[in-house]
């Protein structure tokens, strides 16, 4: 480009303006792809995060076009003609240009930092009247627990229930390794750190069911460690679910097997047990594959270990799982214990007994395969 005369200068300025306009338009077009690459905006936070994402996509898109354009232009315009063995012009730099291309990116990142900070403050501020939910990650199941007003028991569920417009404040704890609670539709993610209780908050704005995904490598079943959030349309519909669950927890059935089933679906004093995280069990709708299937387990329990009764096998499997590894599976089942309520994997013996009672009914005809009267003596003998 010949810069030595004023019409040359004018042409250069015009070309720069044209390029600038093209870049801005190009960046804006690229930014329009934002809704295509992000899940539906199911939370109040999502809308703000997506707006920020879009701004960065527009700026980034423009810069990308600038660089690709410069490369393409150079590749065509400055190709050495065949046979031309000469050198290019001895240009070592241009201080003005270098200053400009230092200043502009610096300004861009300052602006992005300020906008990001504003969004951050908005989405992390505490709200009034938050719904408190305790979430737990255990290899490989999520569980959520709610206070039952006036009772010591809590409602435990593998699904997080809330309702549209209700700000949720989550307390997150892990029973084993680090996990991460991620709800893509809500744009929130928070790690669960061993030894700590961490927090997250969000306000759902769409009714529906939204996936929860574990986003911190936690072992073999990490890809399977999924849950959902059910956002009811209003508080009434949430309470319809909640009240039924609370009633079941506060009025456990007398029949031990039914009590065991309730424990397996809704947890006990220590919260939800993580069985569904690893096991398939048709009767309860579980489909995880990290551990062996429990469907029809009572048919097999008596014959699994020669000389060991079905009742003892099922009971010991809860508390000493590595004694009876099924070939093809790794020793990943947590070892439950009944001595210390504050330690991880606490399962009081009475609950273990009820769970065994339920497992005993997993036969082809649904009749219990066990003599439950034998269990108390076996419990003494652990």
């Amino acid at each position, binding site marked *: 480009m010949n810069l030595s005369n004023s019409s040359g200068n004018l042409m250069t300025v015009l070309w720069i303006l044209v390029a600038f306009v093209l870049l801005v338009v190009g960046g804006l077009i690229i930014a329009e792809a934002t809704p295509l*690459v992000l*899940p539906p905006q199911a939370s109040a936070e999502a809308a703000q*995060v997506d707006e*920020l*994402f879009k701004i960065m*996509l527009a700026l*980034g898109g423009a*810069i*990308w076009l600038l*660089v*690709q354009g*410069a490369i393409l232009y*150079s*590749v065509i315009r*400055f*190709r*050495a003609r065949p046979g031309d063995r*000469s*050198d*290019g*012009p*001895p*240009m*070592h*730099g*241009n201080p003005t*240009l*270098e200053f400009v291309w*230092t200043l502009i*990116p*610096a300004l861009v990142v*300052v602006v*992005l*930092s300020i906008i*990001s900070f504003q*969004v*951050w403050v908005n989405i*992390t501020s505490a709200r009034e009247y938050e719904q408190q939910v305790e979430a737990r990650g255990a290899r490989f199941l999520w569980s959520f627990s709610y206070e039952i007003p006036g009772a010591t028991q809590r409602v435990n569920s593998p699904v997080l229930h809330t309702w549209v417009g209700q700000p949720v404040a989550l307390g997150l704890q892990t029973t*084993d*390794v*680090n996990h*991460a609670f*991620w709800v*893509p539709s809500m*744009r*929130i*993610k928070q790690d669960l750190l*061993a*030894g700590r209780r*961490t927090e997250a908050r969000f306000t759902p704005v769409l009714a529906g069911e939204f996936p929860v*995904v*574990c986003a*911190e490598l936690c*072992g*073999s*079943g*990490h890809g*399977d460690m999924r849950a959902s959030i059910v956002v009811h349309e209003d508080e009434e519909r949430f309470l319809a679910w909640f009240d039924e669950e609370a009633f079941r927890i506060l009025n456990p059935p007398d029949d031990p097997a039914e009590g065991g089933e309730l424990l397996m679906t809704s947890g006990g004093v220590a919260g939800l047990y993580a069985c569904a995280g690893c096991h398939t069990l048709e009767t309860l709708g579980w489909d995880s594959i*990290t551990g062996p299937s429990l469907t029809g387990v009572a048919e097999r329990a008596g014959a699994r270990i020669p000389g060991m009764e079905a009742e003892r096998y099922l009971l010991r499997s809860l508390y000493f799982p590595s004694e009876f590894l099924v070939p*093809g599976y790794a020793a990943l089942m947590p070892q439950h214990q009944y001595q210390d309520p504050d330690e991880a994997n606490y399962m009081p013996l009475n609950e273990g007994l009820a769970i065994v009672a339920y497992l005993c009914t997993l036969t082809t005809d649904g009749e219990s395969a066990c003599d439950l009267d034998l269990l108390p003596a076996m419990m003494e003998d652990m």
Partner: protein
Amino acid sequence: MATITATPGLATRRDGEAAIRLASLLRWTLDHKLIGLQYMASSLFFFVVGGAMAMLIRWELLTPTLDLMADGTQYNALMTMHGSIMIFLWILPMMAGFGNYLVPLMLGAKDMAFPWLNAFAFWLIPPAGVLLVAGWLLGPAEAGWTAYPPLSTLFSLDGQTMWAMALHLLGLSSILGAINFIVTIRNMRPAGMTYWKMPLFVWAVLATAIIQVLATPFLTGGLTLLILDRVAGTSFFDPGSGGDVLLWQNVFWFYSHPAVYIMILPGFGMVSEVLSVHARKPVFGYRAIALSSLSIALVGFTVWAHHLFTSLQPALRIPFMITSMIIAVPTGIKIFSWLGTIWGGKLRFNSAMLFALGFISLFVFGGIGGVMLASVPVDIHLHDTYFVVGHFHFTLFGGSVFLIFAGIYHWFPKMTGRRLDERLGKLHFWMTYIGFFFTFMPQHIAGALGMPRRIAIYDPAFTNINQVISLAAFLLGIASLVLIYNLLRSLQTGERVGGNPWRALTLEWATTSPPPPWNFRGDPVPFDDPYGYGSDEGRAYLDAVDRRFPAPTPEAVEAESGSARS
């Protein structure tokens, strides 16, 4: 003059010209050129191994359920090995190989400052590789290359300990090599070569070495605590006994973020050389590029916690966002300077240049993704998803590996006296660029849409995008085989070249190809401006070099191949 002295590892022909025999790379040698080639050969071996693992990963990910892998642990072990090998046994030592080969030559020196230390640092690598692979067989490391406790301490088998021991050896190798580079560059520049007249590759290696000596000891510390927790009953990372899992995360990333600059900075130096030579133009903004390498090295120590935005205490997230945004600026300066270098030049599109241009094209995409990840609210959504996997493959493969490829095509003639086949080079480039783009660009989309990383079982909604990614990855895998074939074949039958086939001004080209064991006769005088293209003095200097170190005549090549072996 033409004495046939048996210098270890080289078959001397005449006038000090030498040939490379692959078997010679298995011997202990103090010659920095052979050590450089040893680094490169071992790195290329592990590139193929790590690449094969990537192919298995992508095969598994063709479907949302487990098929190739028996269970999640097998998959996690595979991806842990893939990452660990690619970082610690491919990119890091390959960059060290280029540094070892080129820095003394560019400085007109006979060798590095500490030749014995140089050899020792290389020979730590094969045992480390053995330890790493042996660990896989013992009960594999499955916690990713990031090895977060408690998964890596309380829930992993002995392979995790072997992994940590292997990384100890590799970290030691890195530190020793870096000390060597710093001393060599400081003390062994030729008369007249001030810091401001050093080739930019030497600047890059200097900045890299500074990072290596300052950061790697933190990895050593972290690994030591990890090993102790695993074997000695300590509880540095066990909250149940007074430890803290975040301690590992912070110490690990305090090293591992600067580590990514260790992996890219030498490449940045190489691309400055390649672009300048093949555009026949000085590097645009030499001082800015030199200083930006140092500022990246410095600021790179202030950003580490952006790798743990979702586990870091909330009050610290914004400060690390700010530092992470700042570091985009020196990198941007480099990209614009490289564009300024080619703008208005006389571009020659050989394979080295294609990879250099491909690098700029791809790296900027990775850099933009990096700025998006630096923003805390956006990172909350994108952290630990395939968006991050796409991002770091753009910077590490589209960045470091493309630069390594450019360096291979550019310096292979110097190292071996032969050119790589250009048609195969162009095939390699186009297959790699296209395969790369369609492997890693869609990963950004998958991640943003909700696919986490490090999983073999995924939501079936992501099946189509994963199949596209896997097919493109298979193309990429085949492309890399084209390079390996080209390397092996050209060693035998590549076109013979003289000292300076590219007519470049830096000192490594002012001797034979390959150089004799003593590099130069006497003390070479560097040309005043390592990027003085377009000047009459530059032209005259290059003509003189061509007269002194011409390409062998066809008759000479005939005569040699009659008497020479391989």
